[in-house]
């Protein structure tokens, strides 16, 4: 089981390395979105707007990045995986891989965003806490949306269905994480914000547990 998990992680990585355009397109999506925003607003100094725009960009980057997890397999590869691996290891490996991808992608987005839209709001911020909120939020998107991506892929529809199914699921998480990052930008102490982070961690754990329980039923065909 354990080595199976590691093997599946390596498989994901190898697949992505083989089709380099996949990883590149995710980064490019974020960069072009940020650049479009830059063309629209130049520099932003108002904390709520800066924060909200960043999370909107990250949210749609997450949908864009995660929808392909289950769509790249054609019937043959899926059948092959099905005979070799336990479905639970498959979903856990994919979720982990997506979480890492989203963490990296969120950092790329943050760097691009700060570069183009401006870092004046970070002057008074608790930067460590803000980065933690961003990473936790991005990982949370990945954990909650991986199962949704699998359902949408099985239903045979594209990004549209995934957005419809996934948005209500991530919306409350988004609200909590936006609030936590807003507080971090305002430079609020840990004692105030810790409950948001604990809540986020709890939601993330719940999402993973549900995915692990439910995915075997989805995988069966």
């Amino acid at each position: 089981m354990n080595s199976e998990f590691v093997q599946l992680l390596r498989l994901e990585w190898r697949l992505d390395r083989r089709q380099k355009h996949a990883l590149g397109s995710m980064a490019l999506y974020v960069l072009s979105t940020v650049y479009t925003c830059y063309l629209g607003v130049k520099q932003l100094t108002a904390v709520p707007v800066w924060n909200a725009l960043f999370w909107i960009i990250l949210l749609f980057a997450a949908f864009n990045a995660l929808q392909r997890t289950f769509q790249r397999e054609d019937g043959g590869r899926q059948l092959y995986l099905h005979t070799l691996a336990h479905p639970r290891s498959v979903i856990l490996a994919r979720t982990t891989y997506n979480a890492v991808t989203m963490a990296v992608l969120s950092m790329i987005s943050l760097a691009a965003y700060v570069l183009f839209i401006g870092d004046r709001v970070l002057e008074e911020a608790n930067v460590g806490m803000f980065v933690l909120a961003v990473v936790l939020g991005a990982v949370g998107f990945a954990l909650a949306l991986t199962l949704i991506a699998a359902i949408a892929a099985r239903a045979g529809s594209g990004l549209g269905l995934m957005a419809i199914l996934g948005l209500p699921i991530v919306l409350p998480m988004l609200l909590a994480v936006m609030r936590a990052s807003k507080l971090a930008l305002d430079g609020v102490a840990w004692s105030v914000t810790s409950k948001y982070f604990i809540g986020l961690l709890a939601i993330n754990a719940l999402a993973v547990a549900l995915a692990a329980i439910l995915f075997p039923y989805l995988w069966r065909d």
Partner: protein
Amino acid sequence: MKYWWWKVLSVVLLLGVVIVGLRTPLSPALIACTPDRVAPGPVTVTLAGYNTHFTDAVIALWIENSGQRVCATSFKALSNDRIEMQFTVPPGLRNEFCDLWVRTRTHGDLRYRDAFYTVERGQGLDPATASTCEPADVAAASTPFTLPNRNILNESIRNLFFHVPMWFAMVALMSIGVWKSIRVLQLGKARYDREALAAVQVGLLFGLFGLVTGSLWARVTWGTWWTTDAKLNGAAVAVLMYLAYLVLRGSVPEPAKRARLAAIYSIFAFVFMLLFFFVLPRLNAVDSLHPGNGGNPAFNTYDLDSRLRMIFYPACIGWIGLSVWMYDLRKRMAHLENTRQHANDR
């Protein structure tokens, strides 16, 4: 009777809730008085009440300030909800605000909190010279059955018997739905899928009723149809999630696959719905207006008193019973339609 006693029970309970809940008057309350400030010397005060019986029930009126009383020298009821009175305010009232009290024969003592701003304050009335008073005691009359009269809520307090049970009914139906979805995953039978769909459809209807009654209530009490509040967001998102469930069903043509995908999403959605209803509002509690969050007491801490409970609990049982009955009908219709389709196919 053996099988449908609960349907009769819920209909009887709901009839009772509608009649008693809408016909019971609110308890009397004092709602406004002019002027809003008192200075030492004579003053004429006009007091407005709601559901009061000023013409025949008033025994005494007095101003109270830091435990010291000043009785009205005379009073005259203009109507059942307006009364005019004269005070001679002595100098030296200590606190910033005075309360106005009315002792009535029918409803005991009514208090109008912070009725007046005290213009020239002192160190308290001199007990030797001040004309303080002791209003005559009144034998505790058996007060008639009324609903609490709360500032801002006013008559809309009756919505408690409709708005809150809607969400209880929705959670109850979605629980049925998630149970049927688990059966779909375990046994893979189409009948469970139809039952899960019926539960979600009826539950969604109650969720929409909950949104509508809540929106009306928000308009009356908060002055807006909708606001970004943790609990409201949770409710809207829960409804959206189950609408997405219907979209998902619509986009998969093959019945067996549709049943399984819908069941998986419904279980996922149900757990998140519980999270949105019961956990996240507490997390984001700081900026919530909704009762039960962020320093706004829920009804049970201050006002879900025995009078409201006597109607609220039957209302919950009645609405949940009615919703389960509706689910039962919807389920049987779905089974019949399925049988007819099979007959037609043959």
